[in-house]
Protein backbone atom coordinates (compact mmCIF):
# COMPACT_ATOMS: atom_id res chain seq x y z
CA UNK A 1 0.00 0.00 0.00
CA UNK A 2 2.69 2.46 1.07
CA UNK A 3 4.81 1.44 -1.94
CA UNK A 4 1.90 2.14 -4.28
CA UNK A 5 1.39 5.59 -2.72
CA UNK A 6 5.12 6.28 -2.96
CA UNK A 7 5.17 5.40 -6.66
CA UNK A 8 2.09 7.59 -7.22
CA UNK A 9 3.43 10.70 -5.47
CA UNK A 10 7.04 10.26 -6.61
CA UNK A 11 5.82 9.93 -10.19
CA UNK A 12 3.64 13.00 -9.74
CA UNK A 13 6.57 14.98 -8.31
CA UNK A 14 8.91 14.01 -11.17
CA UNK A 15 6.23 14.61 -13.80
CA UNK A 16 5.37 18.05 -12.42
CA UNK A 17 9.08 18.94 -12.12
CA UNK A 18 9.64 18.07 -15.79
CA UNK A 19 6.55 20.10 -16.65
CA UNK A 20 7.95 23.15 -14.78
CA UNK A 21 10.93 23.19 -17.13
CA UNK A 22 9.18 22.19 -20.35
CA UNK A 23 6.15 24.51 -20.22
CA UNK A 24 6.46 27.72 -22.23
CA UNK A 25 3.67 29.53 -20.38
CA UNK A 26 5.02 30.87 -17.04
CA UNK A 27 1.67 30.34 -15.31
CA UNK A 28 1.64 26.64 -16.26
CA UNK A 29 5.17 26.33 -14.88
CA UNK A 30 4.01 27.92 -11.62
CA UNK A 31 1.03 25.56 -11.33
CA UNK A 32 3.31 22.57 -11.99
CA UNK A 33 5.65 23.78 -9.24
CA UNK A 34 2.68 23.82 -6.85
CA UNK A 35 2.07 20.20 -7.88
CA UNK A 36 5.70 19.37 -7.05
CA UNK A 37 5.36 20.94 -3.59
CA UNK A 38 2.14 19.12 -2.79
CA UNK A 39 3.47 15.71 -3.87
CA UNK A 40 6.69 16.34 -1.90
CA UNK A 41 4.51 17.06 1.15
CA UNK A 42 2.80 13.70 0.66
CA UNK A 43 6.22 12.02 0.53
CA UNK A 44 7.21 13.76 3.79
CA UNK A 45 4.09 12.36 5.46
CA UNK A 46 5.16 8.86 4.39
CA UNK A 47 8.61 9.50 5.90
CA UNK A 48 6.99 10.17 9.29
CA UNK A 49 7.55 13.95 9.12
CA UNK A 50 4.01 15.43 9.17
CA UNK A 51 5.16 18.81 10.50
CA UNK A 52 7.58 19.37 7.62
CA UNK A 53 4.82 18.30 5.22
CA UNK A 54 2.33 20.82 6.64
CA UNK A 55 4.89 23.62 6.65
CA UNK A 56 5.90 22.74 3.08
CA UNK A 57 2.31 23.21 1.92
CA UNK A 58 1.64 26.35 4.00
CA UNK A 59 4.87 28.20 3.18
CA UNK A 60 5.72 27.13 -0.35
CA UNK A 61 2.39 26.21 -1.97
CA UNK A 62 0.20 28.52 0.10
CA UNK A 63 2.30 31.67 0.39
CA UNK A 64 5.31 31.91 -1.94
CA UNK A 65 3.72 30.39 -5.05
CA UNK A 66 0.53 32.40 -4.52
CA UNK A 67 2.65 35.55 -4.75
CA UNK A 68 4.39 34.23 -7.88
CA UNK A 69 1.04 33.42 -9.52
CA UNK A 70 -0.26 36.83 -8.41
CA UNK A 71 2.63 38.64 -10.12
CA UNK A 72 2.30 36.55 -13.29
CA UNK A 73 -1.42 37.39 -13.43
CA UNK A 74 -0.85 41.06 -12.65
CA UNK A 75 1.88 41.57 -15.26
CA UNK A 76 0.12 39.36 -17.83
CA UNK A 77 3.42 37.69 -18.81
CA UNK A 78 3.31 36.44 -22.39
CA UNK A 79 4.14 32.94 -23.50
CA UNK A 80 7.84 32.50 -24.22
CA UNK A 81 8.60 32.18 -27.92
CA UNK A 82 10.63 29.16 -28.96
CA UNK A 83 14.02 30.41 -30.15
CA UNK A 84 16.94 28.73 -31.89
CA UNK A 85 19.51 27.52 -29.39
CA UNK A 86 22.53 29.84 -29.37
CA UNK A 87 24.86 28.25 -26.80
CA UNK A 88 25.25 24.86 -28.45
CA UNK A 89 27.86 23.53 -26.01
CA UNK A 90 25.11 23.41 -23.32
CA UNK A 91 23.61 20.19 -24.71
CA UNK A 92 26.71 17.94 -24.26
CA UNK A 93 27.38 19.61 -20.88
CA UNK A 94 23.84 18.80 -19.73
CA UNK A 95 24.21 15.18 -20.88
CA UNK A 96 27.50 14.78 -18.97
CA UNK A 97 26.09 16.39 -15.80
CA UNK A 98 22.98 14.21 -15.96
CA UNK A 99 25.16 11.11 -16.34
CA UNK A 100 27.21 12.15 -13.28
CA UNK A 101 24.03 12.70 -11.25
CA UNK A 102 22.60 9.31 -12.22
CA UNK A 103 25.93 7.64 -11.43
CA UNK A 104 25.99 9.27 -7.99
CA UNK A 105 22.45 8.13 -7.26
CA UNK A 106 23.25 4.59 -8.40
CA UNK A 107 26.36 4.60 -6.19
CA UNK A 108 24.35 5.69 -3.18
CA UNK A 109 21.66 3.10 -3.81
CA UNK A 110 24.04 0.17 -4.35
CA UNK A 111 27.02 0.81 -2.09
CA UNK A 112 25.81 2.83 0.88
CA UNK A 113 24.10 0.78 3.57
CA UNK A 114 20.65 2.33 3.75
CA UNK A 115 18.07 2.02 6.49
CA UNK A 116 16.24 -1.25 5.83
CA UNK A 117 12.80 0.40 5.55
CA UNK A 118 11.33 3.89 5.97
CA UNK A 119 10.37 4.77 9.51
CA UNK A 120 6.94 3.66 10.58
CA UNK A 121 4.75 6.80 10.84
CA UNK A 122 2.92 5.21 13.76
CA UNK A 123 5.90 4.83 16.09
CA UNK A 124 8.50 7.46 15.12
CA UNK A 125 8.44 10.71 17.07
CA UNK A 126 11.24 12.56 15.31
CA UNK A 127 9.00 14.43 12.87
CA UNK A 128 6.25 15.36 15.31
CA UNK A 129 5.59 19.02 16.15
CA UNK A 130 6.54 18.73 19.81
CA UNK A 131 10.01 17.25 19.18
CA UNK A 132 10.75 19.78 16.40
CA UNK A 133 9.69 22.65 18.70
CA UNK A 134 11.86 21.38 21.54
CA UNK A 135 14.82 21.07 19.19
CA UNK A 136 14.33 24.55 17.72
CA UNK A 137 14.19 26.28 21.09
CA UNK A 138 16.96 24.34 22.87
CA UNK A 139 19.82 22.81 20.85
CA UNK A 140 19.30 24.78 17.64
CA UNK A 141 18.25 28.09 19.21
CA UNK A 142 21.16 30.12 17.80
CA UNK A 143 20.81 28.98 14.15
CA UNK A 144 17.06 29.49 14.45
CA UNK A 145 17.45 33.08 15.70
CA UNK A 146 20.10 33.87 13.07
CA UNK A 147 17.74 32.69 10.34
CA UNK A 148 15.02 34.94 11.78
CA UNK A 149 17.40 37.93 11.67
CA UNK A 150 18.20 37.07 8.06
CA UNK A 151 14.49 37.17 7.19
CA UNK A 152 14.09 40.46 9.08
CA UNK A 153 16.93 41.93 7.04
CA UNK A 154 15.19 40.88 3.84
CA UNK A 155 11.95 42.55 5.00
CA UNK A 156 13.73 45.79 5.98
CA UNK A 157 15.58 45.80 2.65
CA UNK A 158 12.37 45.34 0.68
CA UNK A 159 10.69 48.15 2.66
CA UNK A 160 13.60 50.51 2.02
CA UNK A 161 13.60 49.84 -1.71
CA UNK A 162 9.82 50.21 -1.93
CA UNK A 163 9.77 53.50 -0.02
CA UNK A 164 12.57 55.08 -2.03
CA UNK A 165 10.46 55.02 -5.19
CA UNK A 166 7.91 57.36 -3.59
CA UNK A 167 10.30 60.33 -3.20
CA UNK A 168 9.30 61.89 -6.51
CA UNK A 169 10.55 65.48 -7.06
CA UNK A 170 7.99 68.23 -6.39
CA UNK A 171 5.77 69.11 -9.32
CA UNK A 172 6.42 66.05 -11.48
CA UNK A 173 3.23 64.77 -13.03
CA UNK A 174 1.14 67.91 -12.51
CA UNK A 175 -1.13 68.58 -15.46
CA UNK A 176 -0.98 72.22 -16.69
CA UNK A 177 -3.95 74.57 -16.19
CA UNK A 178 -6.71 75.06 -13.65
CA UNK A 179 -8.07 71.83 -12.19
CA UNK A 180 -10.16 70.15 -9.53
CA UNK A 181 -8.41 67.58 -7.37
CA UNK A 182 -9.68 65.36 -4.57
CA UNK A 183 -8.30 65.66 -1.08
CA UNK A 184 -7.09 62.08 -1.23
CA UNK A 185 -4.74 62.99 -4.10
CA UNK A 186 -3.45 66.14 -2.43
CA UNK A 187 -2.90 64.57 0.97
CA UNK A 188 -1.92 60.89 0.99
CA UNK A 189 -3.10 60.57 4.59
CA UNK A 190 -6.72 61.38 3.69
CA UNK A 191 -7.35 58.08 1.89
CA UNK A 192 -10.83 57.85 0.43
CA UNK A 193 -11.70 61.51 1.11
CA UNK A 194 -13.23 62.77 -2.14
CA UNK A 195 -13.75 66.41 -1.06
CA UNK A 196 -12.92 68.57 -4.11
CA UNK A 197 -9.90 70.88 -3.92
CA UNK A 198 -10.08 73.60 -6.61
CA UNK A 199 -6.88 75.07 -8.03
CA UNK A 200 -6.90 78.04 -10.40
CA UNK A 201 -3.42 77.70 -11.91
CA UNK A 202 -0.72 75.15 -12.63
CA UNK A 203 1.54 76.75 -10.02
CA UNK A 204 -1.12 76.40 -7.35
CA UNK A 205 -1.71 72.72 -8.15
CA UNK A 206 2.04 72.15 -8.09
CA UNK A 207 2.33 73.82 -4.69
CA UNK A 208 -0.61 71.82 -3.30
CA UNK A 209 0.66 68.48 -4.58
CA UNK A 210 4.23 69.13 -3.46
CA UNK A 211 3.50 71.09 -0.31
CA UNK A 212 1.28 68.71 1.64
CA UNK A 213 3.34 65.66 0.69
CA UNK A 214 6.30 66.84 2.74
CA UNK A 215 4.56 66.92 6.10
Amino acid at each position, binding site marked *: MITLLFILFAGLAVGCAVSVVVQRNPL*YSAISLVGVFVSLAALYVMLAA*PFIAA*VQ*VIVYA*GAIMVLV*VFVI*MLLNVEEEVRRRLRLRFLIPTAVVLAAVLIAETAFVIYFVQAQPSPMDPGTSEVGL*TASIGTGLFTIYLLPFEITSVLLLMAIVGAMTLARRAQNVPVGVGVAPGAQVLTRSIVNPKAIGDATPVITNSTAEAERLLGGEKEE
Partner: protein
Amino acid sequence: MEWLNRILEVAWGFVPITVTFIVVLMIVAYTVLAERRVLAFIQGRLGPNRVGYGGLLQPFADLLKFILKEDIVPDKSTRFVYFLAPVVAIMTALMTMIVYPFGPAVYIPILGEVRELVIARFDVALLYVLGITSVGVYGIALAGWSSNNKYSLMGGLRAASQLISYELSLGLSLIGVVLLSGTLDLYAIVEQQSGWYGLQWNIWRPDRIQFFGFLIYLISAIAETNRVPFDLPEAETELVAGFHTEYSAMKFALFFMAEYVNMLTVSMLATTLFLGGWNGPGVASFPILGVFYFLGKVVFFLFLYIWLRGTLPRFRFDQLMNFGWKFLLPVAILNIIFTATFAYFGLFG
Protein backbone atom coordinates in the same frame (compact mmCIF):
# COMPACT_ATOMS: atom_id res chain seq x y z
CA MET B 1 -7.59 -14.56 1.81
CA GLU B 2 -5.31 -11.94 3.30
CA TRP B 3 -5.54 -9.63 0.30
CA LEU B 4 -9.33 -9.67 0.58
CA ASN B 5 -9.08 -8.53 4.19
CA ARG B 6 -6.69 -5.77 3.17
CA ILE B 7 -9.10 -4.55 0.51
CA LEU B 8 -11.99 -4.66 2.97
CA GLU B 9 -9.91 -2.71 5.47
CA VAL B 10 -9.24 0.03 2.92
CA ALA B 11 -12.89 0.00 1.84
CA TRP B 12 -14.00 0.48 5.46
CA GLY B 13 -11.88 3.61 5.54
CA PHE B 14 -14.06 5.11 2.83
CA VAL B 15 -17.31 4.64 4.77
CA PRO B 16 -16.88 7.55 7.24
CA ILE B 17 -15.54 9.73 4.42
CA THR B 18 -18.60 9.03 2.29
CA VAL B 19 -21.01 9.62 5.18
CA THR B 20 -19.30 12.93 6.04
CA PHE B 21 -19.28 13.95 2.37
CA ILE B 22 -23.03 13.39 2.01
CA VAL B 23 -23.87 15.09 5.32
CA VAL B 24 -21.68 18.09 4.46
CA LEU B 25 -23.30 18.49 1.05
CA MET B 26 -26.77 18.25 2.62
CA ILE B 27 -25.83 20.92 5.19
CA VAL B 28 -24.52 23.10 2.35
CA ALA B 29 -27.73 22.66 0.36
CA TYR B 30 -29.89 23.62 3.31
CA THR B 31 -27.60 26.50 4.31
CA VAL B 32 -28.25 27.97 0.86
CA LEU B 33 -31.99 27.58 1.38
CA ALA B 34 -31.79 28.99 4.92
CA GLU B 35 -29.77 31.92 3.64
CA ARG B 36 -32.35 32.75 0.98
CA ARG B 37 -35.29 32.46 3.39
CA VAL B 38 -33.72 34.23 6.39
CA LEU B 39 -32.39 36.99 4.16
CA ALA B 40 -35.88 37.36 2.69
CA PHE B 41 -37.42 37.69 6.17
CA ILE B 42 -34.78 40.27 7.17
CA GLN B 43 -35.70 42.27 4.05
CA GLY B 44 -39.46 41.87 4.51
CA ARG B 45 -39.97 39.30 1.72
CA LEU B 46 -40.99 35.64 1.76
CA GLY B 47 -38.21 33.93 -0.18
CA PRO B 48 -38.51 30.60 -2.04
CA ASN B 49 -41.44 28.71 -0.45
CA ARG B 50 -43.10 26.93 -3.38
CA VAL B 51 -41.10 23.70 -3.92
CA GLY B 52 -42.05 21.21 -1.21
CA TYR B 53 -43.40 22.15 2.22
CA GLY B 54 -42.20 25.70 2.95
CA GLY B 55 -39.62 25.41 0.14
CA LEU B 56 -37.82 22.42 1.66
CA LEU B 57 -37.18 20.77 -1.72
CA GLN B 58 -35.82 23.97 -3.29
CA PRO B 59 -32.12 22.83 -3.11
CA PHE B 60 -32.90 19.79 -5.29
CA ALA B 61 -34.77 21.92 -7.81
CA ASP B 62 -31.72 24.21 -7.92
CA LEU B 63 -29.39 21.25 -8.39
CA LEU B 64 -31.47 19.94 -11.28
CA LYS B 65 -31.39 23.37 -12.85
CA PHE B 66 -27.60 23.63 -12.49
CA ILE B 67 -27.17 20.26 -14.19
CA LEU B 68 -29.54 21.02 -17.07
CA LYS B 69 -28.23 24.52 -17.87
CA GLU B 70 -26.01 24.99 -20.89
CA ASP B 71 -22.31 24.88 -20.04
CA ILE B 72 -20.69 27.86 -21.75
CA VAL B 73 -16.91 28.04 -22.16
CA PRO B 74 -15.59 31.45 -23.29
CA ASP B 75 -13.88 31.32 -26.68
CA LYS B 76 -10.55 32.82 -25.68
CA SER B 77 -10.27 31.29 -22.23
CA THR B 78 -7.27 29.21 -21.24
CA ARG B 79 -9.09 25.88 -21.42
CA PHE B 80 -7.05 23.67 -19.10
CA VAL B 81 -6.80 26.22 -16.29
CA TYR B 82 -10.44 27.20 -16.80
CA PHE B 83 -11.48 23.59 -16.11
CA LEU B 84 -8.93 23.12 -13.33
CA ALA B 85 -10.00 26.13 -11.23
CA PRO B 86 -13.43 24.90 -9.96
CA VAL B 87 -11.90 21.47 -9.26
CA VAL B 88 -9.21 23.01 -7.06
CA ALA B 89 -11.79 25.19 -5.31
CA ILE B 90 -14.17 22.37 -4.32
CA MET B 91 -11.42 19.82 -3.58
CA THR B 92 -9.53 22.03 -1.15
CA ALA B 93 -12.82 23.03 0.48
CA LEU B 94 -13.88 19.42 1.08
CA MET B 95 -10.44 18.06 2.04
CA THR B 96 -10.36 19.91 5.37
CA MET B 97 -13.43 17.99 6.60
CA ILE B 98 -11.42 14.91 7.60
CA VAL B 99 -9.85 16.40 10.74
CA TYR B 100 -12.86 17.77 12.60
CA PRO B 101 -14.04 15.81 15.64
CA PHE B 102 -17.81 15.57 15.15
CA GLY B 103 -18.39 13.80 18.44
CA PRO B 104 -16.78 11.90 21.33
CA ALA B 105 -16.10 8.17 21.39
CA VAL B 106 -19.45 6.54 20.58
CA TYR B 107 -20.56 2.88 20.44
CA ILE B 108 -21.37 2.10 16.81
CA PRO B 109 -23.84 -0.83 16.53
CA ILE B 110 -22.82 -2.03 13.02
CA LEU B 111 -19.14 -2.31 13.95
CA GLY B 112 -19.84 -3.45 17.49
CA GLU B 113 -17.10 -1.24 18.91
CA VAL B 114 -16.52 2.19 20.43
CA ARG B 115 -15.08 4.76 18.00
CA GLU B 116 -14.13 8.42 18.11
CA LEU B 117 -16.26 10.35 15.62
CA VAL B 118 -13.40 11.81 13.62
CA ILE B 119 -12.17 10.59 10.24
CA ALA B 120 -8.45 11.12 10.75
CA ARG B 121 -6.63 12.01 13.93
CA PHE B 122 -3.05 13.12 13.50
CA ASP B 123 -0.37 15.30 15.03
CA VAL B 124 -0.62 18.36 12.76
CA ALA B 125 -4.40 18.54 12.20
CA LEU B 126 -4.60 22.33 12.70
CA LEU B 127 -1.64 23.01 10.38
CA TYR B 128 -3.26 20.69 7.83
CA VAL B 129 -6.41 22.82 7.85
CA LEU B 130 -4.40 26.03 7.41
CA GLY B 131 -2.31 24.49 4.62
CA ILE B 132 -5.25 23.17 2.63
CA THR B 133 -7.15 26.46 3.02
CA SER B 134 -4.15 28.41 1.76
CA VAL B 135 -4.00 26.22 -1.36
CA GLY B 136 -7.68 27.07 -1.96
CA VAL B 137 -6.64 30.55 -3.16
CA TYR B 138 -5.51 29.02 -6.46
CA GLY B 139 -9.06 28.01 -7.35
CA ILE B 140 -10.25 31.62 -7.24
CA ALA B 141 -7.12 33.26 -8.65
CA LEU B 142 -6.84 30.86 -11.59
CA ALA B 143 -10.56 31.15 -12.34
CA GLY B 144 -10.17 34.91 -12.61
CA TRP B 145 -7.10 34.66 -14.82
CA SER B 146 -8.23 31.92 -17.20
CA SER B 147 -11.63 33.46 -18.05
CA ASN B 148 -9.99 36.14 -20.22
CA ASN B 149 -12.33 38.78 -18.82
CA LYS B 150 -11.16 41.95 -17.10
CA TYR B 151 -13.83 41.79 -14.41
CA SER B 152 -12.91 38.19 -13.65
CA LEU B 153 -9.23 39.12 -13.49
CA MET B 154 -9.94 42.02 -11.13
CA GLY B 155 -12.04 39.73 -8.93
CA GLY B 156 -9.34 37.05 -8.92
CA LEU B 157 -6.61 39.53 -8.01
CA ARG B 158 -8.73 41.05 -5.26
CA ALA B 159 -9.51 37.61 -3.86
CA ALA B 160 -5.87 36.57 -3.89
CA SER B 161 -4.65 39.71 -2.12
CA GLN B 162 -7.52 39.59 0.39
CA LEU B 163 -6.91 35.95 1.24
CA ILE B 164 -3.16 36.45 1.67
CA SER B 165 -3.76 39.46 3.94
CA TYR B 166 -6.35 37.90 6.21
CA GLU B 167 -4.69 34.48 6.36
CA LEU B 168 -1.99 36.07 8.53
CA SER B 169 -4.30 37.34 11.24
CA LEU B 170 -6.37 34.12 11.00
CA GLY B 171 -3.31 31.95 11.63
CA LEU B 172 -1.98 34.23 14.38
CA SER B 173 -5.34 34.31 16.19
CA LEU B 174 -5.17 30.51 16.60
CA ILE B 175 -1.70 30.55 18.18
CA GLY B 176 -3.14 31.64 21.55
CA VAL B 177 -5.25 28.48 21.73
CA VAL B 178 -2.34 26.31 20.61
CA LEU B 179 -0.04 27.91 23.20
CA LEU B 180 -2.43 27.11 26.03
CA SER B 181 -3.50 23.63 24.87
CA GLY B 182 0.02 22.49 23.98
CA THR B 183 -1.17 20.40 21.01
CA LEU B 184 -2.27 20.76 17.38
CA ASP B 185 -4.53 17.69 17.57
CA LEU B 186 -8.10 19.01 17.33
CA TYR B 187 -9.60 16.02 19.17
CA ALA B 188 -7.28 16.57 22.12
CA ILE B 189 -8.09 20.30 22.15
CA VAL B 190 -11.82 19.52 22.36
CA GLU B 191 -11.26 16.96 25.13
CA GLN B 192 -9.42 19.58 27.19
CA GLN B 193 -12.49 21.82 27.12
CA SER B 194 -14.91 19.30 28.66
CA GLY B 195 -16.58 19.63 32.04
CA TRP B 196 -17.72 22.53 34.25
CA TYR B 197 -20.98 23.07 32.31
CA GLY B 198 -19.36 24.90 29.44
CA LEU B 199 -17.13 27.14 31.56
CA GLN B 200 -14.09 25.28 30.27
CA TRP B 201 -14.57 26.44 26.68
CA ASN B 202 -11.51 28.28 25.43
CA ILE B 203 -13.48 31.43 24.64
CA TRP B 204 -14.18 32.26 28.30
CA ARG B 205 -12.30 29.67 30.34
CA PRO B 206 -10.97 31.69 33.30
CA ASP B 207 -7.46 30.24 33.26
CA ARG B 208 -6.90 30.44 29.51
CA ILE B 209 -9.26 33.09 28.17
CA GLN B 210 -9.04 33.60 24.40
CA PHE B 211 -11.93 36.01 23.86
CA PHE B 212 -9.93 38.42 21.70
CA GLY B 213 -8.41 35.52 19.79
CA PHE B 214 -11.96 34.38 19.04
CA LEU B 215 -13.04 37.82 17.80
CA ILE B 216 -9.98 38.16 15.55
CA TYR B 217 -10.55 34.65 14.23
CA LEU B 218 -14.22 35.33 13.49
CA ILE B 219 -13.50 38.55 11.56
CA SER B 220 -10.64 37.06 9.55
CA ALA B 221 -12.67 33.93 8.88
CA ILE B 222 -15.48 35.98 7.34
CA ALA B 223 -12.89 37.73 5.16
CA GLU B 224 -11.31 34.38 4.24
CA THR B 225 -14.61 33.04 2.97
CA ASN B 226 -15.29 36.16 0.84
CA ARG B 227 -18.58 36.87 2.60
CA VAL B 228 -20.37 40.15 3.33
CA PRO B 229 -19.03 42.62 4.50
CA PHE B 230 -15.75 41.44 2.93
CA ASP B 231 -17.13 40.13 -0.39
CA LEU B 232 -15.03 42.47 -2.53
CA PRO B 233 -13.95 39.71 -4.98
CA GLU B 234 -17.55 39.42 -6.19
CA ALA B 235 -18.82 42.96 -5.63
CA GLU B 236 -21.60 42.93 -8.19
CA THR B 237 -21.88 46.71 -8.49
CA GLU B 238 -18.26 46.97 -9.67
CA LEU B 239 -17.23 43.59 -11.05
CA VAL B 240 -20.42 41.92 -12.42
CA ALA B 241 -19.83 38.69 -10.47
CA GLY B 242 -16.08 38.81 -9.90
CA PHE B 243 -13.95 35.76 -10.54
CA HIS B 244 -16.85 33.50 -11.57
CA THR B 245 -18.42 35.89 -14.10
CA GLU B 246 -17.66 33.55 -17.03
CA TYR B 247 -18.63 30.33 -15.28
CA SER B 248 -22.00 28.74 -15.89
CA ALA B 249 -24.01 25.61 -15.05
CA MET B 250 -22.28 22.99 -12.89
CA LYS B 251 -18.89 24.75 -12.88
CA PHE B 252 -20.52 27.79 -11.29
CA ALA B 253 -22.29 25.45 -8.86
CA LEU B 254 -18.91 24.05 -7.80
CA PHE B 255 -17.65 27.54 -6.90
CA PHE B 256 -20.92 28.23 -5.12
CA MET B 257 -20.66 24.99 -3.14
CA ALA B 258 -16.98 25.64 -2.35
CA GLU B 259 -17.92 29.00 -0.81
CA TYR B 260 -20.50 27.37 1.47
CA VAL B 261 -18.25 24.43 2.36
CA ASN B 262 -15.59 26.98 3.32
CA MET B 263 -18.14 28.74 5.54
CA LEU B 264 -18.86 25.39 7.15
CA THR B 265 -15.13 24.71 7.59
CA VAL B 266 -14.36 27.94 9.41
CA SER B 267 -17.51 27.53 11.54
CA MET B 268 -16.40 24.03 12.53
CA LEU B 269 -12.90 25.26 13.35
CA ALA B 270 -14.32 28.07 15.50
CA THR B 271 -16.58 25.58 17.30
CA THR B 272 -13.72 23.13 17.83
CA LEU B 273 -11.12 25.60 19.06
CA PHE B 274 -13.16 28.17 20.96
CA LEU B 275 -16.64 26.83 21.75
CA GLY B 276 -15.75 23.41 23.12
CA GLY B 277 -16.59 21.31 20.04
CA TRP B 278 -19.00 18.53 20.99
CA ASN B 279 -19.05 19.42 24.68
CA GLY B 280 -22.37 20.22 26.33
CA PRO B 281 -24.61 19.14 29.20
CA GLY B 282 -25.17 15.37 29.36
CA VAL B 283 -22.42 14.35 26.91
CA ALA B 284 -20.59 12.35 29.58
CA SER B 285 -23.53 9.93 30.00
CA PHE B 286 -24.97 10.07 26.46
CA PRO B 287 -21.98 10.57 24.07
CA ILE B 288 -24.18 10.66 20.96
CA LEU B 289 -25.61 14.01 22.16
CA GLY B 290 -22.19 15.50 21.33
CA VAL B 291 -22.88 15.31 17.60
CA PHE B 292 -25.99 17.45 18.04
CA TYR B 293 -24.20 19.99 20.24
CA PHE B 294 -21.47 20.24 17.60
CA LEU B 295 -23.98 20.72 14.79
CA GLY B 296 -25.94 23.23 16.87
CA LYS B 297 -22.90 25.41 17.45
CA VAL B 298 -21.96 25.22 13.77
CA VAL B 299 -25.50 26.22 12.78
CA PHE B 300 -25.19 29.22 15.11
CA PHE B 301 -22.15 30.41 13.15
CA LEU B 302 -23.89 29.81 9.82
CA PHE B 303 -26.83 31.89 11.04
CA LEU B 304 -24.38 34.62 12.08
CA TYR B 305 -23.05 34.68 8.51
CA ILE B 306 -26.56 35.12 7.09
CA TRP B 307 -27.45 37.71 9.71
CA LEU B 308 -24.33 39.75 8.87
CA ARG B 309 -25.18 39.54 5.17
CA GLY B 310 -28.63 40.95 5.85
CA THR B 311 -27.29 43.73 8.06
CA LEU B 312 -23.95 45.13 6.96
CA PRO B 313 -22.90 47.12 3.86
CA ARG B 314 -19.75 46.21 1.95
CA PHE B 315 -16.28 47.53 2.78
CA ARG B 316 -14.31 49.56 0.24
CA PHE B 317 -11.12 47.84 -0.90
CA ASP B 318 -8.64 50.24 0.73
CA GLN B 319 -10.65 50.07 3.98
CA LEU B 320 -10.43 46.30 3.80
CA MET B 321 -6.64 46.32 3.39
CA ASN B 322 -6.11 48.98 6.07
CA PHE B 323 -8.32 47.10 8.50
CA GLY B 324 -6.53 43.80 7.91
CA TRP B 325 -2.93 45.03 8.02
CA LYS B 326 -3.09 48.02 10.37
CA PHE B 327 -5.65 46.86 12.92
CA LEU B 328 -6.32 43.11 12.89
CA LEU B 329 -2.70 41.97 12.48
CA PRO B 330 -1.26 44.11 15.34
CA VAL B 331 -4.11 43.09 17.64
CA ALA B 332 -3.48 39.42 16.82
CA ILE B 333 0.23 39.83 17.60
CA LEU B 334 -0.59 41.62 20.88
CA ASN B 335 -2.91 38.73 21.78
CA ILE B 336 -0.06 36.26 21.26
CA ILE B 337 2.36 38.36 23.34
CA PHE B 338 -0.10 38.68 26.25
CA THR B 339 -1.09 35.02 26.14
CA ALA B 340 2.54 33.88 26.02
CA THR B 341 3.53 36.20 28.88
CA PHE B 342 0.66 35.11 31.11
CA ALA B 343 1.24 31.46 30.26
CA TYR B 344 4.96 31.78 31.05
CA PHE B 345 4.39 33.38 34.46
CA GLY B 346 1.75 30.80 35.28
CA LEU B 347 -1.11 33.31 35.62
CA PHE B 348 -3.22 30.95 33.52
CA GLY B 349 -2.95 28.08 35.98
